[in-house]
Protein backbone atom coordinates (compact mmCIF):
# COMPACT_ATOMS: atom_id res chain seq x y z
CA UNK A 1 0.00 0.00 0.00
CA UNK A 2 1.09 3.51 -0.70
CA UNK A 3 2.07 5.50 2.38
CA UNK A 4 1.36 8.72 0.50
CA UNK A 5 -2.23 8.51 -0.66
CA UNK A 6 -2.82 9.74 -4.15
CA UNK A 7 -5.11 12.33 -2.59
CA UNK A 8 -2.23 13.90 -0.64
CA UNK A 9 -2.06 17.67 -1.09
CA UNK A 10 -0.09 18.44 -4.20
CA UNK A 11 -0.60 15.15 -6.01
CA UNK A 12 -3.40 16.48 -8.18
CA UNK A 13 -2.99 19.33 -10.62
CA UNK A 14 -0.13 20.06 -12.97
CA UNK A 15 3.44 19.29 -11.94
CA UNK A 16 5.37 22.08 -10.27
CA UNK A 17 8.38 21.39 -12.47
CA UNK A 18 8.54 19.62 -15.85
CA UNK A 19 11.52 18.89 -18.03
CA UNK A 20 11.59 17.63 -21.58
CA UNK A 21 14.94 16.44 -22.87
CA UNK A 22 16.11 14.76 -26.04
CA UNK A 23 17.19 11.18 -25.42
CA UNK A 24 20.86 12.11 -25.58
CA UNK A 25 23.08 11.13 -22.63
CA UNK A 26 24.48 14.66 -22.84
CA UNK A 27 21.44 15.86 -20.91
CA UNK A 28 21.59 13.30 -18.09
CA UNK A 29 23.68 15.53 -15.86
CA UNK A 30 21.33 18.50 -16.29
CA UNK A 31 18.27 16.43 -15.47
CA UNK A 32 19.74 14.85 -12.35
CA UNK A 33 21.19 18.14 -11.10
CA UNK A 34 17.82 19.85 -11.43
CA UNK A 35 16.01 17.12 -9.55
CA UNK A 36 18.65 17.02 -6.79
CA UNK A 37 18.57 20.81 -6.40
CA UNK A 38 14.78 20.86 -6.16
CA UNK A 39 14.81 18.07 -3.56
CA UNK A 40 17.47 19.89 -1.53
CA UNK A 41 15.44 23.08 -1.61
CA UNK A 42 12.34 21.15 -0.50
CA UNK A 43 14.22 20.06 2.60
CA UNK A 44 15.35 16.54 1.69
CA UNK A 45 18.56 15.45 3.42
CA UNK A 46 21.69 15.39 1.27
CA UNK A 47 21.79 11.61 1.14
CA UNK A 48 18.24 11.47 -0.22
CA UNK A 49 19.03 14.13 -2.82
CA UNK A 50 21.88 11.97 -4.07
CA UNK A 51 19.62 8.92 -4.19
CA UNK A 52 16.93 10.79 -6.10
CA UNK A 53 19.52 12.03 -8.62
CA UNK A 54 20.77 8.47 -9.06
CA UNK A 55 17.29 7.03 -9.60
CA UNK A 56 16.47 9.68 -12.20
CA UNK A 57 19.78 9.08 -13.97
CA UNK A 58 19.29 5.29 -14.05
CA UNK A 59 15.71 5.62 -15.25
CA UNK A 60 16.64 7.99 -18.08
CA UNK A 61 19.58 5.76 -19.09
CA UNK A 62 17.18 2.84 -19.37
CA UNK A 63 14.76 4.81 -21.53
CA UNK A 64 17.66 5.78 -23.82
CA UNK A 65 19.20 2.29 -23.93
CA UNK A 66 16.17 0.00 -23.88
CA UNK A 67 13.23 2.20 -24.84
CA UNK A 68 14.79 4.12 -27.70
CA UNK A 69 17.67 1.75 -28.58
CA UNK A 70 20.04 4.69 -28.15
CA UNK A 71 18.34 7.00 -30.64
CA UNK A 72 19.38 10.45 -29.39
CA UNK A 73 16.55 12.58 -30.74
CA UNK A 74 13.46 11.22 -29.00
CA UNK A 75 11.60 12.99 -26.19
CA UNK A 76 11.82 12.09 -22.50
CA UNK A 77 9.65 13.92 -19.96
CA UNK A 78 10.37 14.28 -16.25
CA UNK A 79 7.64 15.75 -14.02
CA UNK A 80 7.97 16.70 -10.35
CA UNK A 81 5.23 17.05 -7.76
CA UNK A 82 6.10 17.88 -4.17
CA UNK A 83 3.51 16.05 -2.05
CA UNK A 84 2.15 17.66 1.07
CA UNK A 85 1.79 21.39 1.44
CA UNK A 86 4.16 23.68 -0.38
CA UNK A 87 3.67 27.00 1.34
CA UNK A 88 3.86 29.70 -1.26
CA UNK A 89 4.69 32.52 1.09
CA UNK A 90 6.10 34.52 -1.68
CA UNK A 91 6.22 38.12 -0.57
CA UNK A 92 7.71 39.99 2.30
CA UNK A 93 8.64 43.50 3.23
CA UNK A 94 12.17 43.25 2.06
CA UNK A 95 14.52 45.60 0.26
CA UNK A 96 14.14 46.30 -3.42
CA UNK A 97 15.94 43.45 -5.06
CA UNK A 98 15.54 41.26 -2.00
CA UNK A 99 12.90 38.64 -2.35
CA UNK A 100 11.16 36.06 -0.35
CA UNK A 101 10.05 32.54 -0.82
CA UNK A 102 10.90 30.60 2.24
CA UNK A 103 8.14 28.20 1.60
CA UNK A 104 8.58 24.47 1.56
CA UNK A 105 7.55 23.75 5.06
CA UNK A 106 5.38 20.71 5.01
CA UNK A 107 6.61 18.77 2.00
CA UNK A 108 6.30 15.08 2.82
CA UNK A 109 7.52 13.50 -0.36
CA UNK A 110 8.56 14.10 -3.94
CA UNK A 111 6.74 12.35 -6.77
CA UNK A 112 8.73 11.97 -9.97
CA UNK A 113 7.16 10.75 -13.21
CA UNK A 114 9.31 9.85 -16.22
CA UNK A 115 7.58 9.28 -19.55
CA UNK A 116 8.67 8.35 -23.04
CA UNK A 117 7.25 7.57 -26.48
CA UNK A 118 9.33 4.44 -26.84
CA UNK A 119 8.15 0.92 -27.43
CA UNK A 120 5.81 -0.50 -24.85
CA UNK A 121 6.97 -3.47 -22.82
CA UNK A 122 5.32 -5.62 -20.19
CA UNK A 123 6.04 -3.80 -16.89
CA UNK A 124 6.67 -7.20 -15.30
CA UNK A 125 9.70 -7.59 -17.57
CA UNK A 126 11.36 -4.53 -16.08
CA UNK A 127 12.99 -6.26 -13.17
CA UNK A 128 16.34 -6.70 -11.56
CA UNK A 129 18.44 -9.81 -11.83
CA UNK A 130 20.08 -11.98 -9.18
CA UNK A 131 22.90 -9.85 -7.79
CA UNK A 132 24.87 -12.89 -6.58
CA UNK A 133 25.92 -13.33 -10.18
CA UNK A 134 28.63 -10.67 -10.42
CA UNK A 135 28.75 -9.32 -13.96
CA UNK A 136 28.74 -5.95 -15.71
CA UNK A 137 25.30 -4.38 -16.08
CA UNK A 138 21.87 -5.29 -14.90
CA UNK A 139 21.91 -2.97 -11.88
CA UNK A 140 19.71 -0.04 -12.88
CA UNK A 141 16.28 -1.34 -11.89
CA UNK A 142 17.63 -2.76 -8.64
CA UNK A 143 19.15 0.62 -7.75
CA UNK A 144 15.94 2.50 -8.59
CA UNK A 145 13.89 0.18 -6.36
CA UNK A 146 16.45 0.29 -3.57
CA UNK A 147 16.67 4.07 -3.26
CA UNK A 148 13.06 5.12 -3.93
CA UNK A 149 10.10 4.38 -1.66
CA UNK A 150 7.63 3.54 -4.41
CA UNK A 151 8.35 2.51 -7.98
CA UNK A 152 5.72 1.72 -10.61
CA UNK A 153 6.21 1.05 -14.29
CA UNK A 154 3.18 1.12 -16.59
CA UNK A 155 2.24 1.53 -20.21
CA UNK A 156 1.08 5.01 -21.19
CA UNK A 157 -2.31 5.36 -22.82
CA UNK A 158 -1.09 5.42 -26.43
CA UNK A 159 2.64 5.05 -26.84
CA UNK A 160 5.53 4.66 -24.50
CA UNK A 161 6.06 3.88 -20.85
CA UNK A 162 5.56 5.75 -17.60
CA UNK A 163 7.66 5.32 -14.46
CA UNK A 164 6.27 6.81 -11.25
CA UNK A 165 8.63 7.09 -8.30
CA UNK A 166 8.02 8.50 -4.83
CA UNK A 167 10.68 9.44 -2.32
CA UNK A 168 9.57 10.36 1.18
CA UNK A 169 11.38 13.15 2.98
CA UNK A 170 11.22 11.54 6.38
CA UNK A 171 11.26 7.80 6.73
CA UNK A 172 8.74 6.25 9.04
CA UNK A 173 10.92 3.21 9.55
CA UNK A 174 13.12 0.93 7.54
CA UNK A 175 13.43 1.58 3.84
CA UNK A 176 10.64 -0.06 1.92
CA UNK A 177 11.07 -1.27 -1.62
CA UNK A 178 7.93 -0.47 -3.54
CA UNK A 179 6.26 -3.03 -5.69
CA UNK A 180 5.33 -2.11 -9.17
Amino acid at each position, binding site marked *: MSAIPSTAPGSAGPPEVSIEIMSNPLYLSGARELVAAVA*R*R*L*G*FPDESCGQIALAVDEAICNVIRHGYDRAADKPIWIHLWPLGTVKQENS*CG*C*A*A*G*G*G*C*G*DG*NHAVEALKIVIEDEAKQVDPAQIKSRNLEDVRPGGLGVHIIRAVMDEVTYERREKTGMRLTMIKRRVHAGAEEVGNG
Partner: protein
Amino acid sequence: MAERRADSVTVNCETRGNAVILSPVGDVDLTASPVLRQELKRVQGKRPARLVVDLTLVPYMDSSGVATLVEAMQIARKNGTRMVLCALADRVRSIFEIARLDTVFVIVATSDAAMTA
Protein backbone atom coordinates in the same frame (compact mmCIF):
# COMPACT_ATOMS: atom_id res chain seq x y z
CA MET B 1 9.10 36.44 8.98
CA ALA B 2 11.54 34.15 7.29
CA GLU B 3 13.15 31.69 9.64
CA ARG B 4 16.58 30.18 9.37
CA ARG B 5 16.30 26.92 7.51
CA ALA B 6 18.99 24.40 6.73
CA ASP B 7 17.38 23.78 3.36
CA SER B 8 17.66 27.38 2.24
CA VAL B 9 20.49 29.20 3.95
CA THR B 10 21.77 29.11 7.51
CA VAL B 11 23.45 32.15 9.00
CA ASN B 12 26.00 31.48 11.72
CA CYS B 13 26.78 34.34 14.07
CA GLU B 14 29.83 34.85 16.26
CA THR B 15 30.99 37.78 18.40
CA ARG B 16 34.70 38.49 18.77
CA GLY B 17 35.49 41.55 20.86
CA ASN B 18 33.84 44.53 19.17
CA ALA B 19 33.19 42.56 16.00
CA VAL B 20 30.23 40.50 14.89
CA ILE B 21 30.95 37.86 12.26
CA LEU B 22 28.04 36.57 10.18
CA SER B 23 28.70 33.45 8.11
CA PRO B 24 25.90 32.46 5.75
CA VAL B 25 26.00 28.84 4.59
CA GLY B 26 24.49 28.03 1.20
CA ASP B 27 23.43 29.75 -2.00
CA VAL B 28 22.21 33.30 -1.38
CA ASP B 29 19.44 33.70 -3.93
CA LEU B 30 15.89 35.08 -3.90
CA THR B 31 14.77 32.41 -1.43
CA ALA B 32 17.73 32.88 0.89
CA SER B 33 18.46 36.60 0.90
CA PRO B 34 15.51 37.49 3.20
CA VAL B 35 17.02 35.13 5.78
CA LEU B 36 20.38 36.84 5.50
CA ARG B 37 18.69 40.24 5.57
CA GLN B 38 16.89 39.44 8.81
CA GLU B 39 20.11 38.32 10.47
CA LEU B 40 21.92 41.44 9.29
CA LYS B 41 19.14 43.64 10.69
CA ARG B 42 19.24 41.79 13.99
CA VAL B 43 22.98 42.16 14.54
CA GLN B 44 23.05 45.72 13.20
CA GLY B 45 20.50 46.62 15.84
CA LYS B 46 23.34 46.12 18.34
CA ARG B 47 25.51 48.64 16.48
CA PRO B 48 28.75 46.67 16.57
CA ALA B 49 32.00 48.53 15.84
CA ARG B 50 32.80 45.95 13.12
CA LEU B 51 30.56 43.71 11.03
CA VAL B 52 32.26 40.93 9.08
CA VAL B 53 30.29 38.94 6.51
CA ASP B 54 32.30 35.78 5.92
CA LEU B 55 31.28 34.26 2.57
CA THR B 56 33.51 31.17 2.76
CA LEU B 57 30.51 28.86 2.61
CA VAL B 58 28.53 30.74 -0.04
CA PRO B 59 29.17 29.07 -3.40
CA TYR B 60 26.62 31.21 -5.24
CA MET B 61 25.00 34.63 -4.89
CA ASP B 62 22.59 36.51 -7.14
CA SER B 63 21.63 40.18 -7.22
CA SER B 64 19.11 39.77 -4.40
CA GLY B 65 22.02 38.82 -2.13
CA VAL B 66 24.06 41.75 -3.39
CA ALA B 67 21.10 44.10 -2.78
CA THR B 68 20.85 42.78 0.77
CA LEU B 69 24.52 43.54 1.38
CA VAL B 70 24.24 47.02 -0.17
CA GLU B 71 21.36 47.79 2.16
CA ALA B 72 23.38 46.51 5.13
CA MET B 73 26.32 48.68 4.10
CA GLN B 74 24.12 51.77 4.03
CA ILE B 75 22.89 50.99 7.55
CA ALA B 76 26.47 50.32 8.68
CA ARG B 77 27.60 53.71 7.35
CA LYS B 78 24.77 55.46 9.17
CA ASN B 79 25.64 53.62 12.38
CA GLY B 80 29.40 54.09 12.16
CA THR B 81 29.92 50.32 11.83
CA ARG B 82 32.92 49.12 9.82
CA MET B 83 31.52 46.50 7.43
CA VAL B 84 33.89 44.05 5.70
CA LEU B 85 33.25 41.14 3.34
CA CYS B 86 35.70 38.25 3.24
CA ALA B 87 36.46 34.95 1.53
CA LEU B 88 34.46 35.43 -1.66
CA ALA B 89 34.42 32.52 -4.10
CA ASP B 90 35.46 33.57 -7.62
CA ARG B 91 31.90 33.23 -8.78
CA VAL B 92 30.62 35.47 -5.97
CA ARG B 93 33.39 38.02 -6.42
CA SER B 94 32.57 38.33 -10.09
CA ILE B 95 29.00 39.48 -9.42
CA PHE B 96 30.38 42.34 -7.30
CA GLU B 97 32.71 43.22 -10.16
CA ILE B 98 29.92 43.13 -12.73
CA ALA B 99 27.80 45.37 -10.48
CA ARG B 100 30.85 47.65 -10.02
CA LEU B 101 30.56 47.23 -6.27
CA ASP B 102 33.94 45.57 -5.76
CA THR B 103 35.46 48.95 -4.88
CA VAL B 104 32.43 50.16 -2.92
CA PHE B 105 32.66 47.32 -0.39
CA VAL B 106 35.73 46.53 1.67
CA ILE B 107 36.55 43.03 0.44
CA VAL B 108 39.43 41.00 1.88
CA ALA B 109 40.69 37.48 1.35
CA THR B 110 40.46 35.93 4.81
CA SER B 111 38.42 36.22 7.98
CA ASP B 112 41.63 37.07 9.85
CA ALA B 113 42.27 39.99 7.52
CA ALA B 114 38.67 41.07 8.00
CA MET B 115 39.29 41.70 11.72
CA THR B 116 41.78 44.46 10.98
CA ALA B 117 40.81 45.73 7.50
